[in-house]
């Protein structure tokens, strides 16, 4: 029975769609209390006083903590997990991020007090009785403005609000010289706007201290429970790791925002010990808008040079990356190692320089959000390519093909070394483009576009992206500043009856690991899918884990599972050889049994499993049991790629954009479950298109987040989107045992520039030669661009 490559229905869906999931907020512990944070309505203000007396005497209130209590306890703030150094070698500025603020709030939503009551309603009533006297101060929310002299300072010890400056690639003067000598230079000033992740399940955390055993349990909405435990124990609270269990049960989406260790997790654990009762905190939606780590927020100036044939000569990219007021767990890595390293794209650029300044502002933290750095890189490159084609009067596809890195499989041909530090594993970039053009009906479309006359403008936009998944190996990421390894662990425990429990350090929060991983295991062992159970998300069940993000689970976590299965089969063969009175070399394993080659003598997986646990007739030199753990540290990243095409209609009178078609051809390597991959691509496309057309934060001059609700923050909805036309090519990853690359983020990385390019193309066809319209492409911006010839 083969499972790999089949669209097996997701085994987890029964509990999700029948309301039987077990999410953090579903958990009820005896004697549990409810916690609510008192949060700042101001972006930047001195706290002159906090009066909690009325709240403390409010009905049901158990305890109120303030920033004074946290400062007095000596607890550290939550740490940053990635260090980026200044160009001169100095360590980045790393200001503390306290669990509750004592003196000064630095963004709207900053926590100043924590109220614990017998129930939520009582805690909620008490919040209104806390009186905080603020002295409001000037705030800055834009990263480029913040880095200018004279901007309000976020941290006194970070002059100019600069956390770090960083560059990668060729020397700037060489790039400048190459640009100066170019036949044509395309220039763009881009804003990759800040977006809110908006997972359907708000963040939630339960702290449960048990004094009898001096043990802690943290239930939390995490993509990354083991790393949360490590950071919580070793860096924040200084409590012993073996006394702390972290459980991330069912988690309702993350998109990156649940990777990080948040202050609220440390707060419920610390406070639970203080009051010796469990405490549950669950974010309200408006709290999620204010405090879930946001995504993107880059201001970028980019120039690409071309020779007279359209060959790229040079690229200079300069970015101000907004990090927010505090450094979230992986914040410094996103605009640097996950963005700068992708700035070559699919192209053979001779000279590249990427310059990034990480900037503090009076805003919520920014960190990895679906794609994390790669969408920001792809947005620049792919906007440049379509605009350069318009400016030079070339076909955007021809321009790309002239510049594509030739096909290489990473086995017979070597990987491709870029000028910005990466070694691409394998790729066939012409393949995805040709397939996509065929699906579009490109020639017919161009004819239709030229002849359209219905008050609308028709446009087509392309994006040919590459991304990097499964960030690795640990030694390399360590050298780049990661304060963690990026391996994965997996334990395959064969039960005496031949049923298999797999303990994975990856964490599914919507990806369908319980199905995909089980397909891999069942396929490799030749046993029924129902005989495999995937366990994840509990630090007491799973040895260790680095969690799920960066489209790494199958490439890294799946490979760890394969390593353990290989060990099971290897040991099983010794048991089988003993039972069959054969030699190991004479056995072959297929369809769930070991067979002596050339004979009909065989023994099943189940019989071998039972023998391993009932070792009466057993090899003398072999331990009983059939249970193996593995840690897999990949040799390299994996590099999915693809071609996305958007076709839009723009209303000339209103500027309204209608996405008519979206074609995506992605190459994510080998595929285990096509349905799940397609689902991941669809979701990614919706989010990427959402950024292009709908989503984006709006801040007032004083730093208030103006659209912190679904009434004002526009999410993509089903009726905004066409039926996606999705297909794929398959270029296996050469360096992991499954040949898989990763599919979680590809849709979100490729789609955004395709949509914006399509609108720009439509406007050029209408005679409006605009270079850029700032995302999201709300109607007024598009309309303005048609009136003025520019977006401003």
């Amino acid at each position: 029975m083969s499972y790999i490559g089949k669209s097996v229905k997701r085994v987890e869906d029964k509990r999700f769609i029948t309301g039987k999931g077990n999410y953090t907020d579903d958990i009820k512990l005896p004697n549990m209390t409810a916690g609510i944070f008192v949060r700042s309505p101001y972006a930047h203000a001195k706290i002159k006083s906090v009066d909690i007396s009325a709240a403390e005497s409010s009905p049901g209130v158990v305890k109120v903590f303030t920033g004074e209590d946290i400062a007095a306890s000596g607890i550290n703030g939550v740490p940053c997990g990635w260090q980026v150094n200044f160009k001169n070698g100095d360590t980045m500025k790393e200001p503390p991020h306290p669990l509750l603020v004592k003196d000064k709030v630095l963004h709207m939503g900053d926590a100043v007090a924590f109220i614990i009551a017998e129930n939520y309603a009582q805690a909620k009533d008490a919040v209104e009785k806390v009186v905080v006297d603020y002295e409001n101060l000037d705030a800055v929310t834009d990263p480029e403005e913040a880095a200018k002299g004279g901007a309000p300072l976020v941290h006194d010890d970070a002059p100019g609000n600069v956390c770090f400056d960083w560059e990668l690639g060729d020397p700037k003067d060489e790039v400048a010289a190459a640009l100066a000598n170019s036949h044509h230079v395309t220039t763009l000033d881009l804003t990759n706007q800040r977006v809110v992740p908006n997972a359907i399940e708000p963040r939630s955390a339960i702290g449960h201290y048990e004094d009898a055993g001096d043990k802690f349990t943290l239930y939390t909405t995490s993509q990354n429970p083991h790393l949360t435990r490590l950071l919580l124990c070793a860096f924040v609270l200084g409590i012993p790791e073996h006394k702390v269990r972290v459980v991330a049960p069912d988690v309702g989406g993350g998109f990156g925002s649940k990777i990080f260790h948040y202050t609220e997790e440390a707060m419920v654990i610390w406070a639970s010990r203080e009051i010796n009762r469990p405490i549950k905190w669950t974010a309200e939606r408006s709290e999620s808008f204010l405090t879930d780590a946001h995504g993107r927020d880059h201001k970028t100036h980019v120039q690409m040079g071309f020779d007279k044939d359209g060959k790229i000569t040079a690229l200079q990219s300069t970015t101000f990356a907004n990090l927010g007021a505090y450094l979230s767990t992986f914040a410094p890595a996103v605009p640097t190692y996950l963005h700068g390293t992708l700035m070559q794209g699919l192209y053979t650029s001779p000279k590249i320089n990427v310059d990034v300044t990480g900037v503090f502002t009076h805003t919520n933290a920014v960190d990895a959000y679906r794609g994390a750095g790669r969408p920001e890189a792809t947005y620049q490159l792919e906007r440049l390519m379509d605009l350069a084609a318009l400016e030079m009067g070339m076909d955007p596809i021809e321009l790309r093909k002239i510049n594509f890195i030739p096909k290489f499989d990473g086995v017979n041909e070597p990987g491709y070394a870029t000028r910005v530090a990466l070694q691409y594993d394998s790729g066939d970039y012409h393949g995805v483009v040709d397939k996509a053009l065929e699906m579009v009906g490109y020639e017919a479309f161009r004819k239709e576009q030229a002849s359209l006359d219905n008050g609308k403008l028709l446009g087509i936009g392309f994006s040919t992206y590459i991304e990097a998944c499964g960030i690795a190996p640990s030694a390399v990421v360590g050298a780049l500043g990661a304060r963690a390894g990026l391996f994965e662990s997996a334990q395959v425990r064969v039960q005496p009856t031949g049923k298999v429990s797999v303990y994975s350090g990856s964490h599914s929060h919507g990806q369908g690991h319980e199905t995909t991983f089980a397909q891999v295991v069942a396929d490799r062992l030749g046993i029924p899918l129902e005989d495999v159970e995937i366990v994840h998300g509990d630090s007491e069940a799973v040895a260790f884990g680095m969690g799920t993000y960066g489209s790494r689970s199958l490439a890294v976590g799946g490979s760890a599972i394969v390593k353990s299965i290989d060990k099971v089969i290897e040991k099983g063969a010794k048991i089988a050889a003993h039972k069959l009175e054969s030699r190991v070399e004479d056995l072959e394993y297929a369809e769930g049994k070991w067979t002596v080659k050339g004979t009909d003598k065989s023994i099943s997986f189940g019989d071998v499993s039972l023998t391993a646990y009932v070792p009466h007739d057993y090899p003398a030199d072999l331990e009983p049991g059939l249970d193996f753990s593995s840690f897999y540290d990949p040799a390299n990243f994996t590099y999915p790629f693809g071609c996305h095409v958007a076709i839009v209609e723009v209303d000339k009178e209103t500027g309204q954009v209608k996405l008519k078609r979206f074609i995506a051809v992605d190459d994510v390597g080998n595929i285990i479950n096509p349905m799940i991959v397609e689902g991941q691509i669809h979701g990614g496309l919706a989010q990427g298109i959402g950024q292009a057309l709908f989503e984006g934060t709006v801040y007032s001059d004083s730093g208030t987040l103006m659209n912190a609700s679904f009434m004002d923050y526009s999410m993509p909805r089903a009726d905004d989107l066409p039926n996606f036309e999705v297909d794929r090519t398959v270029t296996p990853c050469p360096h992991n045992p499954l040949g898989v690359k990763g599919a979680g983020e590809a849709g979100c990385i490729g789609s955004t520039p395709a949509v914006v390019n399509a609108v720009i193309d439509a406007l050029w066809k209408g005679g409006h030669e605009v270079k850029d319209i700032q995302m999201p492409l709300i109607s007024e911006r598009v309309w303005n661009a048609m009136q003025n010839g520019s977006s401003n």
Partner: protein
Amino acid sequence: MIPSSFTYKKASSVSDALAMLKEHGDEATLLAGGHSLIPALKLRLNDYGYLIDISKISELKSIDDKGDHIEIGAGVTHGEIVDSALLQSKVPFFSEAADLIGDVQVRNMGTIGGSIAHADPAADWPALLLAADATINIHNGSSSRSVAAADFFQGLFHTAVEEGEMITSISVPVSANAKTKYIKFMQPASRFAIVGCAVNLEMSGGTISSAKVAYAGVSATPFRDSAVEATLAGKSLDDATIEAAGNAAADSASIMSDHFASESYRKQMAKVYTKRALKALA
């Protein structure tokens, strides 16, 4: 998202509800579909000691043909207006507009009376009631009064309803010679109106004998645009008339602005949507 504590009271009739309102004064408010009130309570923007549930009062729930007008009970839901064969045939822009409100769940719970009592400047009904020249019937427990739509909407979330009163029904005049249309430029997140344009043309043969054109979402108070109406009156609905009428739209209005639509863009869209509504009737 937990409101302050309140006492829930269910009213069985209009007089029952008004007696409860009288008893509790400004500590009480009426709960119909709850689609504006409940979120405001949960966000603690509002706080009432008593909620008087009027959603099950049968006398508020009918749509009646009264010959020269149709009487719509205040408790009629948007969904019931979508589905009403009477309104579809006699006042079609009411059914069109109702179908553009929120989503199915909102339409099945939210009521026309609740919406106009709330008087959100971006809600659709105020523009419809103005363009239809409707009358709002109000009761205070001892007497009733009727207020023309033009006098009812007095500002942002502000109406002619006084303390101790409730809206019981809306009277919508019917004309066999009317042509009506409602179209809406939706705010993409909330799907409330950035521009809602309600047009009601009284035709005499091929000539517009009188026009009523009203807007939602454009101003803090919904309004009829007399300049547009004057441009249309006495004309036939041809391209030149439509162009002139559209160009006149919203010129004298005080126009709202937000991050989806500035003042100047909103004004321009009022013109575009006026033309589109008229074109649909031509």
